[in-house]
């Protein structure tokens, strides 16, 4: 038979000797000390009940605070992942790409001789504008190491563009010293700007990893505290049952239920968020990393291709670097094979174009080398600015489209992970309130019976 609220006032729940002991211990004729009164009251059942209640409420509060703050922290990490870290990583890749493309374009424009083609000038200007945009976004979101690299970029990019414009105006006057300014600018790009842009990317990627591990962290502390609350509630309920001969206390049962619910929800939501995050990493950010690296390498190779001709016979180092880079990208088991092995489905159509364009670019490059090696310098320049340029552009934009597609997958999974914790802090707060209310009401009812 289940009786929860039938008051039994017939028998005194506490043995008589215990109740009188406190009175006996108080020294006659003197006011009882605070400590004495506390000890005394604990000997009474109502006092003991008050202690149990205080301990239970404190435990429940602790567990609740741990759960709520934990959920809020993880939700904040996940929000940052989708709204901040993802876009920041993309912006750092955009920055690197824009800078190397500006450099490759400037070298190509120089190759063409005389007035630079308007299309190349436009492309260079678009790259510089894009660098400025990416730098602004990154400046608002990165600190620490990232900020140091950004400071280098912000202070040196104007120096770079200044050198390029000097080279350009000297070129227009027909003075060969313009080429020396272009070389100095290229050296600045390779020695300072691109390494700093790489540092920015590394910092953004590290922040993203931090957010991911923060968002996917298992809420061990909160779960342990909740289990502690459940255990304490069970113990108190058994003692209470022994004291009062009543098996169930509605308030404490509600509190226990709330504690169990909170524990389960903490576990389930953490697993769900973890699954989404893992999917986002495997189908999104890992693949984006791989493709971004290939894109950056290819841009370097494109600059090498132009600089080999600018150096005019003295560019063996550039050509060697080009050959090594393209081999790393296109050989069996190379970077492109690796990317194809991890194809996510959404990037498949773009990857097919990437493959085709890589082969065509390599073929055009061999044509360039054959012409240059055979003494047809003008023809080599024509192919570099024509066929090789358009095949490279196809390769680069298809890779860019694949990166965008997989970035979207990552953003969606990060959003899913955030969804698993949505309103989690309110829910955890409500369950904590239910626990505490249950404990207070349940124990107070019993205490009231002693008045």
């Amino acid at each position, binding site marked *: 038979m289940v009786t929860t609220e039938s008051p039994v006032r017939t028998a005194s729940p506490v043995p008589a000797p215990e109740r009188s002991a406190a009175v006996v211990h108080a020294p006659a004729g003197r006011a009882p000390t605070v400590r004495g009164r506390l000890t005394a009251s604990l000997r009474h059942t109502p006092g003991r009940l008050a202690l149990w209640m205080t301990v239970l*409420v404190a435990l429940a*509060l602790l567990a*609740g*605070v741990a759960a*709520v*703050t934990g959920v*809020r*922290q993880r939700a*904040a990490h996940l929000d940052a992942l989708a709204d901040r870290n993802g876009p920041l990583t993309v912006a750092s890749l955009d920055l690197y790409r824009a800078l190397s493309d500006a450099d490759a374009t400037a070298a190509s424009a120089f*190759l*063409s*001789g*005389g007035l630079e083609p308007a299309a190349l000038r436009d492309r260079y200007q678009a790259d510089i504008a894009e660098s400025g945009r990416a730098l602004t976004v990154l400046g608002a979101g990165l*600190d*620490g190491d990232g*900020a*140091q690299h*950004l*400071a*280098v970029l*912000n*202070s*040196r990019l104007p*120096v770079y563009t200044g*050198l390029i414009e000097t080279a350009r105006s*000297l*070129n*227009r006057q*027909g*003075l*060969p*010293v*313009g*080429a*020396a*300014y272009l*070389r*100095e600018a*290229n*050296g*600045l790009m390779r*020695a*300072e700007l691109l390494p700093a842009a790489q540092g920015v990317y590394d910092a953004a990627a590290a922040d993203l990893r931090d957010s991911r591990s923060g968002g996917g962290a298992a809420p061990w502390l909160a779960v342990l505290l909740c289990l502690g609350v459940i255990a304490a509630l069970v113990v108190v309920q058994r003692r209470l049952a022994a004291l009062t001969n009543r098996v169930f206390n509605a308030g404490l049962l509600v509190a226990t239920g709330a504690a169990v619910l909170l524990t389960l929800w903490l576990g389930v939501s953490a697993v769900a968020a973890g699954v989404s995050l893992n999917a986002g990493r495997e189908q999104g950010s890992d693949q984006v990393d791989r493709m971004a690296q290939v894109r950056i390498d290819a841009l370097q190779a494109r600059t090498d291709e132009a600089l080999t001709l600018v*150096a*005019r*016979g*003295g560019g063996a180092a550039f050509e060697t670097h080009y050959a090594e880079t393209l081999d790393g990208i296109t050989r069996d088991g190379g970077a492109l094979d690796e990317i194809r092995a991890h194809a996510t489905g959404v990037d498949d159509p773009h990857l097919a174009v990437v493959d085709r364009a890589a082969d065509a670019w390599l073929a055009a490059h061999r044509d360039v080398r054959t012409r240059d090696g055979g*003494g047809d*310098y*003008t023809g080599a*320049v024509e192919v570099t600015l024509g066929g090789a340029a358009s095949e490279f552009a196809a390769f680069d934009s298809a890779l860019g489209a694949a990166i965008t597609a997989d970035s979207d997958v990552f953003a969606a999974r990060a959003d899913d992970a955030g969804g698993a914790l949505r309103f989690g*802090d309110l829910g955890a*707060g409500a369950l*904590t*309130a239910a626990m*505490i*209310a249950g404990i*207070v*009401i349940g124990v*107070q009812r019993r205490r009231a019976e002693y008045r």
Partner: protein
Amino acid sequence: MNKRLVLGTLLLTAVLAGCATGDGGLPDVRVGAGAPLPVGAQDPAPSASAAPGAAQNCDPRASLRPPASLPAANGMPSGGTLAAIQARGKLIAGVDQNSYRFGFRDPLTGELSGFDIDIAKQVAKAIFGDENKIQYKTVTSATRIDAVRNGEVDLVVETMTMNCERWQQVSFSSEYFTAGQRVLVHRGSGITGMDGLAGKKVCAAAGSTSIRNIAAHAARPVPVAVAGWTDCLVMLQQGQVEAVSTDDSILAGLAAQDPNTEVVGDAFTVEPYGIAIRKENADLVRFVNGVLENVRTDGTWTRLYRTWLTALSTDTPTPPPAKYQD
């Protein structure tokens, strides 16, 4: 009472949950200023080993005597270097693309042009009857001797001073131009020569005779080495060096690109220019000397000087005479 407790608990939970973590610290970053160094520049230049005791008792101007008459174009004697070049179909010439008026890339056309380039074309014309059967490879002062020795190029025509030390590594043609080392500074700098540059930075190309002459000068200037001559002008314009010091012929080309600079002081060295050729290819040396004889006597030399080098002096000098060791 219960209601108050519950309410209080809720409030406490809400306050604790509302605790936001945030740091508003601004980044503390450091950046460097100043113009970047040109690629390959060394400031200060590593001390050049001045090849102690390297056969100084030679006449660097004395080359190999040409044959009495040159073979006709496309009729090179079989079995020699010349036949190999003819079979290849083009002459491979190592040249500079950073010496205005001698060997430079014309920004308007993208073509290599200059006095040295035209001299090389004369050699191609003598072999093939077509001055355009030539492939240029740009080499720097630091790499040109290796390029000749390992056969990467047939010859180097690049404002190259003949001296006894280099004669041990390569052969030279007869002298085709005479230069002397001077100093290029900003107009109005008050510097009138190397003596005014004590402790100051002075630029020259790595591997050139000029950089050694700077390091060895009694005024003790600080040599700064770069890859190409125009890099020196960049560093002068950016205030990274006080002066450029090399052959007057090269300095005139730099001064022509910046009216704010001027060549000052007297020439303190004599630099006879020759075409460098691999030691084993004596037949090519003799052939090139034959070509140069024609260039001197048929008016080509004077025409080329007037095309490219009037900035050096308005009255055209006579071409330097050839000297032979045999």
